[in-house]
């Protein structure tokens, strides 16, 4: 009886194992290819930076006005320092629009006191449906600072409220807890100057845990102390320097991080603004911009630029990190499923034939294949149908592939920006590449798999995100916990 059941199961198991192996080979080959493209693109980009210097752009009065949109929800602890940092950016003509998204703490009061806000009328420039705007305030001490106070509606809703009141041709969307470097706005606006077709550009996100932050600026760049945060440093290097740079070289950028991206306002407004019914509003917007421009035959470009830097605090507990990855996976699924018409559709060019299939088949479905692959693998071994030498060889292949990709990302960092300059940092990053593949990668797969399940179950929450707060120069050894709840 039992053996008959096993005999029936075996062909399915064998077929699935073949699928897993195929998935594994295609995924890693794609990673390897993007790393190769990124290598060439980064080298060229670094040289390009030297030919048109940042100061030249500043001096020539060519930079277009920009609005920085910073949605804030319960940011009372850090909001004043964050806004001060935003007001100190190096850019000739910009406004800062902080959107208080119905905070239940003292975010608005803190801002009102620190910047002497005065309630003023401000006419909207676009009609985007949002939760009710309770009032608009302008700083009497810093005229470029505006604060929009509104009912809670989530991050996308807050961004839409800001977008509706934005008056500049470009806007830069950031997270309120993101620290952007002083000349990051100049750097991220370059693609818009160099190619008038550019409608969106994303910068690089780096992890600030462990680094010293003084007056909203990251000063001493160090690797985080906690292993879990260090893994994320490596992950971010892979994600941005290998993957996004590689996709940009292929002119197929499909993701711009919500923590730091610049957009052409009229195009985003025409496309309908941010979608409020997804937890992945950043990716959804970029996919929709591709679709919008392609369907209307608008010449456009969406770029990733590796030198404008935004620093963020990453989760340092497995619980919070798991929730973040769960949410990211749901956001990815929502974005891709909503625009599934683009899959293998020649109307969408290389997005439809290259980037979209990659994300749809490998990043969206991947965690399911990978997680079930581990199960099938174990079952096959238990059934005695797997040759031990093959098992060892496949595991070794997976591990070595993972290590190679991580080390490639570290090499790309050394080739280009070299932010981690302390003596042991390189050794630590190389060492992490060896450790990360066993354990951390599987955990990630599990969280993303859980995200798939959550999505199928209709979960829509953002989850609680406990943040520790940046380490200030004065209190570097003892970060003050400031638990806050992310939007929604």
């Amino acid at each position: 009886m039992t053996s008959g059941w096993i005999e029936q199961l075996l062909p399915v198991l064998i077929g699935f194992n073949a699928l897993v192996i195929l998935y594994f080979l295609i995924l890693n080959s794609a990673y390897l290819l993007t790393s190769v493209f990124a290598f060439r693109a980064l080298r060229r980009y670094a040289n390009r930076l030297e030919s048109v210097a940042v100061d030249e752009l500043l001096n020539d009065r060519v930079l277009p006005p920009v609005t920085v949109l910073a949605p804030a929800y319960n940011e009372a602890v850090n909001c004043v320092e964050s806004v001060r940092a935003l007001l100190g950016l190096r850019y000739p003509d910009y406004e800062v629009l902080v959107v208080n998204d119905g905070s239940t703490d003292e975010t608005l009061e803190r801002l009102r006191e620190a910047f002497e806000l005065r309630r003023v009328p401000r006419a909207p420039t676009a009609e985007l449906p949002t939760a009710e705007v309770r009032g608009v305030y302008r700083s009497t001490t810093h005229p470029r600072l505006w604060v929009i106070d509104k009912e809670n509606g989530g991050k996308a809703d807050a961004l839409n409220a800001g977008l509706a009141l934005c008056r500049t041709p470009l806007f830069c969307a950031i997270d309120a807890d993101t620290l952007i470097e002083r000349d990051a706005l100049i750097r991220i606006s370059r693609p818009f100057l160099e190619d008038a077709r550019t409608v969106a550009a994303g910068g690089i996100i780096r992890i600030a845990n462990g680094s010293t932050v003084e007056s909203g600026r990251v000063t001493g760049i160090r690797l985080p102390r906690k292993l879990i945060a260090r893994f994320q440093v490596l992950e971010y290097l892979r994600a941005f320097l290998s993957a996004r740079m590689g996709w940009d070289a292929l002119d197929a950028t499909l993701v711009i991080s919500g923590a730091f991206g610049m957009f052409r306002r009229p195009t985003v407004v025409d496309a309908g603004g941010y979608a409020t019914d997804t937890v992945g509003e950043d990716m959804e917007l970029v996919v929709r911009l591709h679709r919008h421009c392609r369907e209307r035959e608008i010449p456009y470009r969406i770029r990733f630029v590796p030198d404008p830097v935004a620093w963020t605090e990453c989760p340092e507990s497995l619980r919070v990190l798991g929730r973040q990855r769960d949410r990211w996976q749901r956001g990815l699924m929502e974005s891709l499923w909503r625009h599934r018409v683009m899959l293998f559709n020649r109307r969408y060019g290389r997005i439809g034939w290259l980037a979209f299939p990659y994300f749809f088949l490998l990043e969206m479905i991947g965690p399911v294949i990978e997680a079930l692959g581990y199960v099938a693998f174990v079952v096959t071994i238990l059934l005695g149908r797997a040759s031990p030498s093959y098992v060892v060889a496949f595991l070794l292949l997976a591990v070595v592939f993972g290590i190679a990709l991580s080390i490639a990302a570290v090499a790309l960092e050394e080739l280009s920006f070299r932010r981690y300059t302390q003596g042991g940092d390189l050794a630590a990053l190389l060492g992490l590449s060896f450790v990360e593949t066993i354990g951390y990668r599987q955990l990630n797969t599990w969280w993303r798999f859980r995200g798939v399940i959550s999505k199928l179950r209709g979960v829509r929450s953002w989850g609680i995100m406990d943040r520790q707060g940046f380490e200030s120069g004065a209190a570097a050894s003892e970060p003050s916990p400031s638990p806050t709840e992310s939007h929604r």
Partner: protein
Amino acid sequence: MIGLDLPDEWVFRLLIDTIGLLIVVTLLLAAVAIRLRRRNSRRAAHFDALEAEWTPLLGAVLYEGADPARLHERVSASDAEHFMVFVNRYAERVRGAELQQLQGLAAPYVGGLVRRVGRGSPESRAQRVRLIADLGMPEHTDVVLESLDDPSPLVAMIAARRLFRPGNEQHFDAVLARLDRFGEWSRRFLAGMLAAGGPAVAPALVRMLTDRGRSEEDRAVAAEALTLLHEIDAASLAARELETAETRSLAVALLRLLQAVGGPREADAVRARMSALDPIVRQAAVETLGALGDMGDAERIVGRLEDPSPWVRMRAASALETLGAREALLRAAEGDGAGSVAAAEVLSA
């Protein structure tokens, strides 16, 4: 194998070979990372040491009349390009006699750059063109001019930006003739580059603006550059061109030019655009009329407070403020029309 009936020996061999290859690649990449770190650290230390040595010598040459040979002795052939970069950091901040002094210091090394200007990646070529243009002598201008025809738009752009500077008037036309090479760059960027030529470029820009043989996009760039230059003499021409401008880009650029340099005499051309179908043109017209018009235009602008475009409503409120029509603004702000918030905002500013 893992339940798959494949020719075991062959597949296993392939697996092992792949693993072996990947291990080699991994080790190579690690070696590259370490080598890059060492090389970059060594280079950074080398350049720091060189610059620490060059900086006081440069100061001595520039301000104490020391013999430049003392500095040149410290520049090896392999460090020549870096020396140019070093000198150029100072050259970018000075003009006149000081710049000439710096050019004199760089002179022995420009020839080497000229020989290599066409070699390497577009980015390397662009960097060399930049250094030659900034530190070269008049006899090197031909090299920069030739770079306008480099296959890379980046190199051509660097050359154009360098040529479009005060004192290079004789080369302005060469750049303007090749403006179509820079079609991808933003209009603002191009206008900024042209305006960097200073007042001397104005006649060439006016010619370009009125040249119907050119694309309206090019003419819009000229209009924007004239706006940046605040070229008052272009006002009447702009009004005339506005009558026939067909594209949004040219119409808006001309309206902005008129807003900056026009007067009541040009107001009629602006009034004609107040009812343009394109809201972007309409808002530029409303704003410009606020600057050039008179109180007689107030009623016309008040009408635009109810425009379907929020941008036009906003500009109309600002225009009324500019005209001094506060009564009209107060009435609008107290009402419940579409432009009431815009009017209230202007009044509260």
